[in-house]
């Protein structure tokens, strides 16, 4: 019972922070889907199902936080590179400020 509650809480935490993590990673450099997925795993330790990243990226695109472009590769298989938009940058600054306040407050509690 308790483990169920914790699992739900962890899922909610992941859901709540994934957008933030993606924007932070894209702020560093433009990345294609698979690369971004690897970076998310590396940065957060989240074990996310690979396919679920695409609906998420699509939503961020619809919200105009990110944009994408296809880049032809020498291998013959093109990559779709995602980059953060100006609107995404502005939102990310607000998210970062909120996160800083939240983590400082929680740090005091813990």
């Amino acid at each position, binding site marked *: 019972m308790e483990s169920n509650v914790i699992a739900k809480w962890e899922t909610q935490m*992941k*859901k709540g922070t*994934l957008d933030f993590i993606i924007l932070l990673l894209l702020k560093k450099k433009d990345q*294609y*889907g*698979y*690369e971004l997925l*690897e970076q998310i795993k590396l940065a957060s330790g989240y074990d*996310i*199902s*690979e*396919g*679920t990243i*695409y*609906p*998420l990226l*699509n*939503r961020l695109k*619809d919200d105009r936080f990110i944009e994408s472009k*296809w880049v032809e590769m020498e*291998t*013959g*298989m*093109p*990559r*779709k590179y995602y980059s953060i938009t100006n609107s995404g940058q502005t939102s990310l600054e607000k998210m970062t400020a909120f996160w800083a306040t939240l983590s400082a407050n929680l740090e005091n509690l813990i």
Partner: protein
Amino acid sequence: MNKDTLLNDQHYKAYMKKVHSMINKLPKHDQADIQREISSHIFESLNNYPETTIEQALENLGEPQTYLSEWVVTKKLERAVSTYNPFRIIWGLITGIIKHGAYAFKYILFGLLYLFTFTFGFLCIAKIIAPSHTGLFISSQSFVFGFSSDISNAHEVLGAKFIPICLFITILLYMVITVLLKMSLVKAKERLF
């Protein structure tokens, strides 16, 4: 792994067939974009970890049904709702009911609300076909709004205003329900991951 080896692999072909069956109701441009991105993902995953087999790469990506169904239905309905085209909305809801079990109940509910709305539209046609049996009938014990076969003890009170009133109700309900559907899609998108 080279591109041609992947494109000719049987597991890959079977997987992409499943992907196609999930997205075939989307516009051609979106279909091509999604297929291209999934292919690119599989290719990158195989090249990043050369010891991985195609079957393992496909397993890691997940069943297309699990990550595409909700996305596709939401995308289709979102487009339909933005046009306010009733045929596209109804078709989107039907796709949602058939292809997306988790939200089927919600889409059935919206379908019933639209059906209720269109009833007022049908009443306008009924008023033209059978004017004396369609309207707001009031008798000493009861009242009927709509079509009534027995009007012997009742009198109709709206007359020529019946059609504009029904049209107004139809449009008002249609707009309200469509805005509600739009809001529910925004929430569905937030839960996409």
